[in-house]
């Protein structure tokens, strides 16, 4: 292939969501030549949809709140496979990260004393689980993600960050030494393909909820970063762990925040019974998300679901009164009117557990550096590559994320990666030149689609993939179904390799983007299926009918999946970090709420 036009930067950040823009801000402020490359205009990134809050022990609602309690809750929430050094770091610097956002201008809701308003969220407690519910989620009404993302974008404009908006990252360019020297990207408006060369490449591409037929995720959440990493030979970790949010609007999939329950709402079955009192007597509706989601499905399976098909339950808010709903949950009111045709001040909202968040991702250390595993089972850093935000697995969420911890993860590790890159540049890390064929490798799948002349349609194949995942990798999983799906997905891979892109035009060709995204959805789906089948236990969000108990002897560890070897050699394991620096480690215990 002819040489591609080349652009050069110190740091390129793929993704303009909360994680990407927090990292970019750090780099741009330090004067490095920084670009954010994003397939959507930055404020249209999925972070904008986050509703309920961002967790940190800033002690506004409760002056005694302590980041160690937050750490305990996060470790417990993770069902003990979150890395304790990373969780310690996130929770301890959390308050500072919130104050930074406020200083940048983020419009948080305020308390009577003028401090940042904090609301209760699921799984957050006081005094190491013994002091009752904690109010720890810092909120801007129920538009926290919008407020956060716009604030970060505004501050990036101020700092002079270069934005490559509506550019699509195709694949990483890895040189002979296994070092990442940039990526191949496509300018959507012109169709031009460019080699973007950088000393540090940061993947901040967000989640992949679109592997499921219904999800709370935006249409752009297609796991592109996961696909890019797997094709480049890097592993993904704990990818079987998918969070189902208890309150997705029935049929639409659109989320209503856990903040609804934080503000005093609760779930009822068709008989109007507040059933969570039976499943989680203490925390009730604010138990861990995995616990609430399973309880809801149990109610439905036992015939107590609401509606003509008994296929959902109801979220009751009307008792909170019009004023609280209007003041604290204005966005929810809009969404439920539009998508459920109910006014929550008068009627309950029909909800079902819905795919929401990818706990797994590209393994990294606390600086965001991507890790791989070398022959002796030890970790090794991949040169030139970082991952942050939902696409990464650092791992602070383990097998189940606590609400309001993702936005915190974005800003804490976005900043940490920025700082690390700054240091690396100061120590003189330079560009790594790839060979022409390394660049060619990164354009291969683009060429494949461009040369396709016949075959199945992208839309049909995507629908099939999404249905397989929805049916077989839901809240409850069974070995038989998962094994069958692994076969179905392998077939699908062959069919996708022969699928057809009919529209070959250059300018703003969204059909081409959807084809490229389908490759990524497939990578994520296959990884999920293979690892989910391999993890023969139930832990956090991964609940199996055939292995119903947690198995700490064999599975108190991360799963590690390499695309090239998994089919033959199976899934690898990686140790969980149990050695925080300043506190005693939290030992695995039975998880009750």
């Amino acid at each position: 292939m002819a040489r591609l036009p080349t652009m050069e930067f110190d740091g390129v950040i793929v993704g303009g969501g909360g994680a990407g823009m927090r990292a970019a801000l750090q780099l741009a402020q330090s004067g490095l030549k920084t670009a954010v490359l994003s397939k959507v205009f930055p404020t249209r990134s999925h972070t904008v949809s986050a509703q309920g809050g961002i967790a940190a022990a800033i002690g506004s609602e409760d002056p005694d709140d302590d980041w160690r309690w937050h750490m305990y809750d996060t470790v417990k929430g993770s069902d003990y496979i979150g890395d304790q050094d990373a969780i310690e770091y996130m929770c301890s610097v959390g308050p500072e990260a919130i104050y930074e956002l406020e200083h940048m201008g983020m419009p948080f809701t305020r308390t009577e004393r003028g401090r940042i308003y904090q609301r209760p969220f699921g799984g957050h407690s006081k005094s190491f689980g013994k002091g009752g519910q904690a109010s720890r989620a810092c909120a801007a009404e129920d538009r926290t993600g919008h407020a956060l993302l716009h604030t970060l974008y505004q501050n990036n404009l101020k700092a002079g960050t270069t934005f490559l908006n509506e550019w699509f990252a195709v694949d990483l360019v890895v040189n002979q030494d296994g070092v990442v020297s940039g990526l191949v990207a496509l300018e959507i408006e012109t169709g031009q393909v460019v080699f973007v060369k950088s000393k540090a490449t940061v993947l901040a591409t967000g989640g992949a909820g679109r592997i499921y037929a219904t999800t709370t995720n935006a249409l752009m959440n297609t796991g592109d970063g996961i696909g890019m990493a797997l094709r480049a030979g890097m592993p993904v970790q704990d990818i079987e762990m998918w969070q189902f949010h208890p309150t997705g609007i029935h049929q639409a999939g659109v989320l209503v925040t856990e903040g609804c329950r934080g503000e005093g709402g609760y779930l009822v079955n068709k008989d109007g019974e507040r059933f969570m009192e039976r499943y989680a007597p203490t925390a009730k509706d604010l138990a861990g998300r995995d616990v609430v989601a399973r309880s809801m499905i149990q109610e439905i399976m036992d015939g107590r679901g609401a509606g003509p098909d008994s296929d959902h339950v109801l979220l009751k808010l009307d008792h909170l009164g019009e004023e609280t709903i209007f003041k604290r949950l204005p966005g929810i009111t809009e969404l439920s009117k539009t998508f459920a045709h109910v006014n929550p001040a008068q009627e309950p909202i029909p909800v079902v557990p819905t795919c929401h968040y990818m706990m797994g991702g590209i393994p990294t250390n606390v600086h965001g550096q991507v890790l791989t595993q070398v022959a002796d089972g030890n970790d090794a850093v991949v040169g030139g590559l970082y991952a942050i935000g939902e696409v990464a697995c650092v791992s602070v969420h383990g097998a189940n994320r606590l609400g309001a911890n993702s936005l915190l993860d974005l800003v804490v590790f976005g900043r940490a990666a920025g700082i690390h890159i700054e240091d690396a540049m100061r120590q003189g890390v330079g560009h790594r030149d790839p060979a022409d064929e390394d660049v060619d490798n990164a354009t291969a799948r683009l060429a494949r689609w461009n040369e396709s002349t016949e075959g199945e349609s992208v839309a049909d194949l995507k629908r099939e993939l999404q249905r397989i995942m929805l049916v077989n990798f839901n809240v409850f999983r069974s070995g038989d179904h998962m094994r069958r799906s692994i076969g179905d997905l392998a077939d699908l891979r062959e069919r996708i390799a022969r699928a057809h892109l009919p529209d070959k035009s250059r300018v703003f060709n969204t059909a081409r983007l959807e084809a490229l995204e389908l490759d990524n959805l497939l990578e994520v789906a296959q990884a999920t299926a293979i690892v989910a089948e391999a993890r023969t236990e139930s832990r956090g969000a991964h609940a199996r009918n055939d292995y119903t108990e947690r198995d700490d002897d064999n599975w108190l560890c991360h799963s590690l999946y390499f695309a090239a070897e998994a089919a033959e050699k199976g899934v690898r394991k990686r140790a969980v970090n149990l050695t925080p620096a300043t506190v005693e480690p939290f030992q695995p215990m039975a998880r009750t709420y």
Partner: protein
Amino acid sequence: MKINIYRFDPDKDESPRMEEMEIDLPEGRDLMVLDVLELLKAKDPSIAYRRSCREGVCGSDGINMNGRNGLACITPISEAASRGKLTLRPLPGLPVVRDLVVDMTQFYRQYEKITPWLVNDTPPPAQERLQMPEDREKLNGLYECILCACCSTACPSFWWNPDKFVGPAGLLQAYRFLADSRDTATAERLAALEDPFSVFRCRGIMNCVSVCPKGLNPTRAIGKIRSMLLSQGI
């Protein structure tokens, strides 16, 4: 149902054309216009439009539906179509890139012009800056803007002077920072808006208010900026 959709691919088409497409709508469900676009795209993948959140919060899919600007993802067919017909066009007044996709450069440039970030050069406290709830309340109706451009592209003053008139979206954000009790750059912000065009081109036609999918009121914000400018002039 018959859908008329604006088509233009600069590589193939000399000039834009309207294409009529037929689609069977599922019974008993009121789809959103975006759902219909997705159904059409499954038939003809070459139709281009922007979309992401599909819930009215990201601002990607501002388009013109039967003559009215709005977000495709939260506009039900029952509301957008009349007598079984629906015409979909790109937002008016901005250059068309392809089909329903417009070039938003001018729109973003106006936003960038109003210094869209908080200015406060006093050293920050160790914790957050305090802000009383009644001061925070002043940001409601302002900070929620999703930059969808439905308002500015419905504004005749913006059509005529997209380079000089900041437009309703930009001015709403200009006021968002003027109204923030934490911001210290009021004088500079007003000085930058004093010329005859930036603010004063607004003719109070209120198109912006009637189309804003988030129910925001740029005209009111513009009125507030005007009175700040005028009282400062005295």
